[in-house]
């Protein structure tokens, strides 16, 4: 078996990156272990909790289900790339002000799911928000403050924003 690392390129948080990946590694593994990111997390490894949510070509996906090589030549955005120029994205700002994060483990995934939701549906209803983050389990907050924060942030995100 030749399970040795292979080189691949991807665009990560707006920058081109060359990286060596193992064929049996997931995109989540590569982001965390090789590229040193701490935002995307493993909560279950099987796509059932959303803690690993990143944007792949602009779409929210469970990065624990994507093999690293499947991300070759594609665009990936993680929570580390949600804010630009050091300024918090309106979602991040709303989450901080409204006291949303408790243990914090689900937060990067929720924010990435919410950002993808707002990019597709700029003025979501409460139902759309709830379904937009229904793939993200949170055990600490009961979700209520998240919904409020996302609705508030939706007012502040410019139309046509890519994230």
């Amino acid at each position, binding site marked *: *078996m*030749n*399970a040795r690392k*292979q080189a691949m390129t991807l665009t990560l948080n707006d920058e081109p990156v060359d990286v060596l990946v*193992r*064929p*049996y590694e*997931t995109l989540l593994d590569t982001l965390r272990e090789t590229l040193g990111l701490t935002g995307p997390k493993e909560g279950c*490894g*099987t*796509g*059932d909790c*959303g803690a690993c*949510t990143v944007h*792949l070509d602009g*779409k*929210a*996906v*469970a990065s*624990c*289900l*994507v*093999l690293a*090589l*499947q991300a*070759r030549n594609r665009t990936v955005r993680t929570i580390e790339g949600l804010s630009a120029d050091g300024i918090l994205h309106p979602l991040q700002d709303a989450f901080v002000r409204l006291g949303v994060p408790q243990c914090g483990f689900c937060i990067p995934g929720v924010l990435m*799911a919410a950002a*993808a*939701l707002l990019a597709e549906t700029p003025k979501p209803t409460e139902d759309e928000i709830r*379904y*937009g983050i*229904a*793939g*993200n*389990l949170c055990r600490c907050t009961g979700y209520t403050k998240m919904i409020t924060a996302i609705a508030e942030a939706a007012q502040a995100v410019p139309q046509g924003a890519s994230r």
Partner: protein
Amino acid sequence: MRRFEMILPGSVKECVQALQQHGAAAKLVAGGTDLLPQLKNHLLKPGVVVDLSGVAPLRQLTADKTGLRIGAAVTARELERDPRLQGPQYRGLAESGALVGSVQVRHLATVGGNICNAAPSADMIPPLLALEAVAVIAGPRGERRVPLRDVITGVRKTVLAPDELLLELAVPDPGPHSGGAYLRHTPRRELDIAVVGVGSQVTLANGVCTKARIALAAVAPTPVHATAAERALEGQALTPQKIEEAATLAVEAARPISDQRGSAEFRRHLVRVLTRRTLTTALARANGAQA
């Protein structure tokens, strides 16, 4: 996961060659939403994984007067959102895509994966069966077309040989005055798996049902065709009584087991309810309602 090699074909031909070379030691991956959990749970330990993400034709979805051609790598999200599937005829298919997992899973999960993984609870299969889809399969000996109803032979078993690849689903246009619906029961609103799923398609002419197709998920090792129910409706006006009769016949066609997701008794109960409801909705759609 255990270690494995990956092959990254750029075309259908390269893919078939890779499968020929490695045979049963190889597994195909598209969205990975079924494969990766199985790898992580050590249910599968392939030496080689063949990635379909670089084979562009598999992601096409075309629609014309003859019907749909759905590439095997079209995602559940695409089925959910594609404007061409929102009309009454194909609506059941869009509904089934919308129910898979969560948004993060739907952006990855493919209709081909749903079929080839052949889990009894697969959501996208009943509407395709109700639409009488045909599977187009590629292999070293060329292409072959197999009605979808003949493709799945058991739990996680299909007629595809180890060196074959599902290319697309050909869905014939069911005609005007046809409506489809898919419903399933799950304990949660999202991130869940069907306890029972029912896909119904009815086609009308002059107020009478000319064709009825009802397919059931998660009530047997393979999808079940409620044939007796279908026959009871064809040639009839679909009154609530007729629909109820069909629902009863659908229950008789089901062979559910009891497991940790639901008892056989509850599953039979649900077959009746969901058959009634999908037929009622499919009828309304066939009659032009956009409900």
